[in-house]
């Protein structure tokens, strides 16, 4: 199994080596985001919001973990559709779970690289030290990574079923979740009816925890409990949904149609 997962991972890593557009996803766009939000937060700090750098840059870097993780799954498989390689993968003796696992590992690599680059730049340019989160850093990272995998699996399942028409979801889904997840502002800012919905997402708990940790200097582990519990639920549901959708896709012949269009 690991040989096949490694082979798929290698295929995606080769792509990053060969494709400027793909490499830019890890380095260029996140760095541009960091620069914009970094300067915005410096400005806020000057006009009397001292924690702006902490909250905005912390939110940005962590949001990127979720985004890269979700994109790794969706873009990797969509790339196979774009280059008409999907059938080659699906007629190889590979389990669908192995394909998903390879893209999840790719998400981990992308998120680690991106976080490392953004963390270093944030420290150098804005004196924001991500390590201020202390021992909470890793579980927050892991929680957003897992949520990204779950959302990525659901998005990919929909794309395999509905084809090119659903590709906008690759970029649209994260931005649908961003305002509800209270990435850059406290949950209390949201209208009360939306707060209940926001708490259904692990990301909301992580960002609330991140702000509490940065504000007090003490790691807030409390929000991790609902975050991980929800992640278990979402991952199980996403796996089941993906499996069910694949069954439908096979039954209806969408896979071959999509791969040979």
């Amino acid at each position, binding site marked *: 199994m690991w*040989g096949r997962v490694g082979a798929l991972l*290698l295929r995606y890593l080769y792509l990053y080596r060969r494709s400027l557009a793909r490499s830019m996803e890890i380095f260029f766009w996140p760095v541009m985001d960091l620069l914009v939000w970094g300067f915005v937060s410096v400005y806020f700090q000057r006009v009397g919001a001292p924690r702006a750098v902490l909250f905005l840059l912390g939110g940005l870097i962590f949001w990127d973990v979720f985004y890269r993780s979700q994109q790794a799954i969706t873009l990797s498989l969509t790339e196979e559709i774009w*280059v008409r390689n999907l*059938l080659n993968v699906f007629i190889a*003796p590979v*389990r669908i779970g192995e394909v998903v696992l390879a893209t999840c590992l790719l998400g981990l690599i992308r998120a680690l690289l991106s976080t490392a680059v953004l963390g270093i730049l944030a420290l150098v340019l804005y004196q924001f030290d991500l390590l201020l989160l202390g021992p909470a850093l890793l579980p927050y990272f892991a929680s957003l990574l897992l949520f990204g995998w779950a959302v990525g699996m659901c998005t990919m399942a929909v794309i395999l079923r509905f084809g090119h028409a659903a590709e906008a979801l690759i970029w649209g889904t994260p931005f649908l979740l961003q305002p509800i997840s209270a990435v850059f502002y406290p949950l209390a800012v949201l209208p009360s009816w939306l707060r209940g919905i926001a708490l259904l997402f692990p990301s909301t708990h992580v960002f609330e925890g991140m702000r509490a940790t940065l504000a007090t200097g003490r790691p807030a582990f409390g929000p991790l409990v609902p975050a991980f519990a929800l992640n278990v639920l979402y991952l199980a549901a996403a796996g089941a949904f993906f499996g069910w959708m694949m069954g439908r896709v096979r039954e209806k012949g969408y896979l071959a149609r999509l*791969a*040979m269009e």
Partner: protein
Amino acid sequence: MNLEPVIKAERLTKRFGEVTAVDDVSFSARRGEILGLLGPNGAGKTTTIQLLLGLTAPTSGRIRIFGLELAKHRREILQRVNFSSAYISLPFNLSVRENLDVFGRLYGVRDRRRRISELLDLFEIPEVIRTVTGKLSSGQVTRVNLCKAFLNDPEVLFLDEPTASLDPDIAEKVRNALKRVQRERGVTMIYTSHNMREIELVCDRVIFLMHGRVVAEGTPREILERADSESLEKVFITIARGGRIED
């Protein structure tokens, strides 16, 4: 030639809503046999291949490959088969070596470097090994796809219009390479093409499909005799226009 069927499709039917793409089709292919799957566009050839590869589930019927039920042993079967089509390709932004290396790993091929080199030699394109796939000519791409299809030394090979984009010279070289592998390794091939002359040259037996049903089956010579025709092309046109040939 071993007479035991390697592929056995029994009463295969595939419906997509109101449309019946494959309608009660039964056939078998023996070890080392090249079986041509012929018919006009929409006759059900591609759907039949998709069913045989387990990409699409049949509405009813049964497929056995190597004596194993495809529905239950798909991965085990896929380890021993492969597929090449003019309508799919390898990632264009990877080099030929990278692409073949990735698929070699997926199929668990040992000594990949040697195997890749052998196959590039077989299809007479050793010089492209370091070239990015997107920079190859269409003829070279087709031959690299065939290299991928032979990586795992398959016992069954599905070839969907393998020479569609090749000039006559390269197409002949590819046909010769396929025949050589069939002879030396006893590979069973399911072959589709719209080039009837090629089918006559390559296939041991052919099946004509029309509206998802088998309308004629036999060796090219038998079909020609039954249709009282001098070429499969004429038989094809007769069938495509709704005509029948005598059993």
